[in-house]
């Protein structure tokens, strides 16, 4: 877990230092992918606090979350409802993140 936290910070630092530009084809997907990955990370954190963390589950859920989110947005773009679908994805993932955050909160603060 400490490794993951350090890696996250290193990634942020790298992103700030390297200042890469987002390629055009990735632009619609990157924010959704980030939100999906955040969902996976929060889920993993919650599982860790619950004592049921499984690295395999985390890795698979992380990758599949990102992939499915990107796919949904891609499909939505092709169908002409891209913005609505990305909103839907963000809403669903946001609700899940909130739920996980609430569970984490209960663990950390016992409330």
């Amino acid at each position, binding site marked *: 877990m400490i*490794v993951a936290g350090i890696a996250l910070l290193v990634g*942020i630092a790298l992103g700030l230092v390297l200042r890469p530009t*987002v390629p055009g084809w990735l632009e619609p997907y990157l924010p959704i992918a*980030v939100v999906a990955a955040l969902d996976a990370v929060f889920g993993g954190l919650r599982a860790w606090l619950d004592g049921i963390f499984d690295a395999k589950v985390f890795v698979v859920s992380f990758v599949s979350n990102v992939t499915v989110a990107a796919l949904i947005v891609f499909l939505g773009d092709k169908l002409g409802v891209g913005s609505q679908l990305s909103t839907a994805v963000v809403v669903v993932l946001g609700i899940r993140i909130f739920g996980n955050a609430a569970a984490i909160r209960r663990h950390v603060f016992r409330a």
Partner: protein
Amino acid sequence: MSETRKLQWRRWSVALIAVLTLLLGFAIAVQVRAHSSGDALSGLREEDLIGILDNQNDRADRLRQQIADLNDSLNKLRNSGDRSAAARRQLLQQSRALAILLGTLPAVGPGVIVTLTDPAAGLTGEDLLDVVEELRGAGAEAIQFGTVRVTTSTSFEGNGGTATVDGTELPPPYRVVAIGDPKTLDTAVNIPGGVAATVRAAGGNLNVQELHKVHVTATRTLPRPKYAEPSH
């Protein structure tokens, strides 16, 4: 064997988690930077951009329409300004022409100076009026008799060597200035059996001087009509 495999898998998973979270952090940083530093439009998708473009086009159309309307009204105002200026010029010209005919403005132009002598004191007011009438008939536009501007209502009296023109007593020799075509005026006055002959018959003499430029300096104030008013 299974223990080492488990250990290996643990190492692998830690590495994978590290890589994934590192990618996540990287992506977060990149996305935040792209969203905040780049211009607001670069992150938008196609249909949103099309919508914005449509809005801008509509706005541009509206503004163009507004420009056209304002230009129209500008032209209208300009035209009306031109028209009123032209009308003013015309009125000014008209009023000047009328002022010359009515004798309220001094006038200058080609014309003649007629000098009448009356050593025998034989000229009557009628004779003087004949001279003026002859000049007027020959197209004189402005006439001055002595120091009096001659107009439609000018009266002539004369006997015993002085003339009274519009109430002003004038001693001979009489000097009549008329603006018009000099040749025509000269011819009209000196026509055989005309006013020149009458004046000579009465013992006086008449001399006509054709000039390029004569000045009618006398003016009169316009009488205010007492009874008549414009009717229409």
